C-alpha cells in the first residue's frame, strides 16, 4: 500500500493517504541493471505521481534519478518492474506509441538542427498524422504560449536562436500533441541563472493553466523546492529517502541523508515557501498626514513606540517620525523623519520580506495591499515565530502519523 519502497518514514505513507489525488503515473518495483555493473542503477523504485502535479526527482549525481525518469518513457528499458500510466500497464506496449503520449524535454534540448523551428515543434503532430491546418494552428499557438512570436520564429533554424529561446522551443515541442504527461530531465540546467529563473517562472505559470502530470529531474534542491508540488529525494540506486511536499522536506527531513542534501540553508529556503499573507502582521503606531500635529504628538507620547508611521490621505506609508520630528514646528511632517521604504505585498514570500527588512533602515517590513495602502508591520520576530509555528505544526502532524500507524517503529 505504501507509495515508497523503503517506507520507514510514516509521513510518506500518511502523505499518500491524506494528500494523493488520482494517480497518473505509477512505478512498481522498477529496476534497472546495466550489464557489467555490480549493483542496480535503479533498485526496486516504487512511486506514485498524482495527476496534475509536478514531482521532482532530486538527488546527488549517480543516484539513478535520470535513469528512473528515462524508464518512464522507456528510452531506457527497465530490467524488471512495471510502469502504469493512467491505469494502463505500458511496460510492454510499443514504445514509439507510448512516447507520442508523453512530452519529453531534456537538458541538451536536442532540437533538430536541419529542421525549421515550426517543423521541430510539429514533430509529434506529424508522427500522429495530423492534417496540415491543424498542425500549423497548433504550432503557432504553442510558439505564442512560450513567448516566441510565430511569424518571427516559425521559419528560423535552431542555430539562429539563443539558448533560452531554444529551451522554449523544446518545451513547445514537448507540448505539441497536448500529452497528459511530461518528462523533464534538468530542462533548465544548461541555461544562465537569470534566464533560468525567468523560464522557471514562466513554466510554473504555464503549468497553472495546463495541469500536466510532470516528472522533473534536477540535482538542485532549490530548483526542486521551487518547481515541485512534491519532491522525491533519491539516494544511490534510486532508493527514495523521502517523498513529500517541499514544506515537509525542509521542515522535517526524514533522515540524515535528506538533512545533508537539503543543506544548511533549509530554513532560508522554507521562507520562500510562506507568503506574507499567511502571517499575522503586527500593528504599528500610525498617524495620518491630515491629522492635527498636536493629536499625533499626544498619541506618540502616550505609546511606548520610538517612532510613528506617517500615512498619506490614501493610507499609503510616507515617513517614519521620531519624537523630535513631532515636536519641531518649523517644517511640515511629510518633510521630516525617514522615508518609509521596505514595503512588501501580501503575495511576496517571507524571504522577500526578510530581504526588505535587512535593506531598509527601520529593520521592519511594511505590509501594503495592492493599492499601496498600509496593512501592518512585519519584523524579524514575526518571521521567527512563523518558522516556529511551521515546525510545531509539522511535529504535531508526525505525532499524529505515529499514532495512526502502529507498525512504525521509528520514534518521533
Amino acid at each position, binding site marked *: 500500500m505504501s507509495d515508497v519502497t523503503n517506507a520507514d518514514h510514516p509521513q510518506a505513507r500518511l502523505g499518500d493517504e491524506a494528500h494523493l489525488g488520482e494517480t497518473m503515473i505509477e512505478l512498481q518495483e522498477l529496476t534497472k541493471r546495466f550489464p557489467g555493473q555490480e549493483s542496480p542503477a535503479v533498485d526496486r523504485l516504487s512511486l506514485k505521481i498524482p495527476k496534475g502535479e509536478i514531482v521532482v526527482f532530486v538527488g546527488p549525481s549517480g543516484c539513478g534519478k535520470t535513469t528512473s525518469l528515462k524508464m518512464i*518513457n522507456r528510452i531506457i528499458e527497465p530490467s524488471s518492474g512495471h510502469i502504469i500510466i493512467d491505469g494502463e500497464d505500458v511496460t510492454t506496449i510499443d514504445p514509439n506509441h507510448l512516447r507520442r503520449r508523453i512530452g*519529453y524535454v531534456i537538458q541538451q534540448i536536442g532540437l533538430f538542427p536541419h529542421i525549421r523551428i515550426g517543423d521541430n515543434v510539429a514533430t509529434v503532430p506529424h508522427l500522429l498524422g495530423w492534417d496540415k491546418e491543424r498542425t500549423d494552428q497548433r504550432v503557432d499557438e504553442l510558439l505564442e504560449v512560450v513567448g516566441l512570436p510565430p511569424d518571427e520564429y516559425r521559419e528560423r533554424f535552431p542555430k539562429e536562436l539563443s539558448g533560452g529561446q531554444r529551451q522554449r522551443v523544446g518545451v513547445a515541442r514537448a507540448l505539441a500533441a497536448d500529452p497528459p504527461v511530461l518528462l523533464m530531465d534538468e530542462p533548465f540546467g544548461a541555461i544562465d541563472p537569470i534566464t533560468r529563473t525567468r523560464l522557471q517562472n514562466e513554466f510554473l505559470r504555464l503549468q497553472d493553466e495546463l495541469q500536466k502530470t510532470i516528472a522533473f529531474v534536477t540535482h538542485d534542491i532549490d530548483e526542486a523546492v521551487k518547481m515541485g508540488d512534491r519532491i522525491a529525494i533519491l539516494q544511490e540506486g534510486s532508493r527514495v529517502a523521502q517523498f513529500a511536499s517541499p514544506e515537509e522536506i525542509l521542515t522535517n527531513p526524514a533522515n540524515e541523508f535528506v538533512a545533508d542534501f537539503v543543506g544548511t540553508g533549509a530554513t532560508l529556503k522554507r521562507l520562500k515557501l510562506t507568503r506574507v499573507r499567511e502571517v499575522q502582521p503586527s500593528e504599528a503606531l500610525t498617524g495620518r498626514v491630515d491629522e492635527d500635529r498636536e493629536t499625533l504628538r499626544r498619541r506618540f507620547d502616550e505609546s511606548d513606540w520610538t517612532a510613528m508611521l506617517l500615512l498619506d490621505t490614501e493610507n499609503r506609508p510616507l515617513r517614519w517620525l521620531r519624537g523630535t520630528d513631532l515636536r519641531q514646528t518649523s517644517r511640515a511632517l511629510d518633510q521630516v523623519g525617514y522615508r518609509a521604504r521596505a514595503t512588501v505585498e501580501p503575495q511576496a514570500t517571507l524571504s522577500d520580506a526578510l530581504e526588505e527588512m535587512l535593506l531598509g533602515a527601520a529593520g521592519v517590513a511594511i505590509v501594503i495591499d495592492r493599492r499601496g495602502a498600509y496593512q501592518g508591520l512585519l519584523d524579524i520576530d514575526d518571521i521567527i515565530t512563523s518558522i516556529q509555528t511551521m515546525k510545531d505544526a509539522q511535529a504535531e502532524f508526525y505525532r499524529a502519523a505515529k499514532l495512526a500507524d502502529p507498525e512504525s517503529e521509528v520514534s518521533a
Partner: protein
Amino acid sequence: MSTLTPPDTSPASVGDAERRRTARAEDAAADKRQRRAKLIHYFGMPLFLALVVVLLYFWVAGQELDSIETRTLTLDNLLGQTQQHLTLTLYSTFFVLLLAVPLGILATRPRLRRYAPVVIGLGNAGQAIPSLGLLALLFYLFRTQAALPSTGTFPVVVSLVGYSFLPILRNTMVGLDQVDRFVLEAGRGMGMSNRRVLGRIELPLAVPVVLAGVRTALVLNVGTAALAFLFGGGGLGETIFAGFQLRRTAVLITGAVLVAVLALLVDYVAGLVEEKLTPRGL
C-alpha cells in the same frame, strides 16, 4: 549666442550623418566583395581549367609534331578517351556508393556496432593495396573465372570500387557517429521509429561528411582510372602511356594535363553538389 544651433547637437548630428554615410559605403563595399567572392566561387575554377586547356592547345600547336604525334593527338581520340575515363569514374563511384553507404549505415547500428572495426579494416585493406597491384590481382583472379571478363570496363570498375571503398565507408560511419546523440534521443523520446530517426535525422545530418567522402573517392578514381588502359579499359591513360613509351613529350604532357584537369573539374562539380545537398541550418 543663444540663437545659434545648440553646440552639443550639431557635432553629434554631423557625426551621425558621417557615420551613416561611412556605414552605407562599407555595406556597399561588403556587398561588392561578397558578390565578387560568389562569382569567383562559382566561375573561378571552370575559367581556370578552360585557360589551362587553351594554353595546352596553343603549346601543342606551337610544337613541330611528327606523324605519330599528330595521329595520337586528334580531337576525336582525346574526347573519346576523356569520355571513357569519365564513364569509368562515374560507374565506379556509383557502385561504391551503392555498397559503402549501406554498409556504413549497418555498421553504425547499435546491434552491429561491434563489427565496425572489422568493416573499417576491410576498407583500409582495399586502400592499402597499391592501385596497380589491386588491378593486377583482379585481372588474374578474373582470368580464372570463365564467366567474368578479365579485360575491359568490368574489372577496372571492380578494382576502382575496391580502391575507393574506404573514403566513402569511413565518412559514412564518421558522419553518422558525429550526429549529436541528444538530438537522436529527443527524436526517439518523441516516438520516432528507428527507421524514421535514421531517415529524417541521422542521414540528413551525416550528408555533408558522406559527400566529402564521395568527393575524395571521385578524385581518387579519376587518378586511378588512368591505369585502366593496362587492362583494356581505355581512358586518358592510353595517351599518357603512348607518350611515355614512344618518348613523345607533347603527347605525355597532353594526357597528364587532361587527367589533372578532369580531376579538378570532377572535384568542382562534386563541391557544387555537396553545397546543394547539405541541409540548411547546419
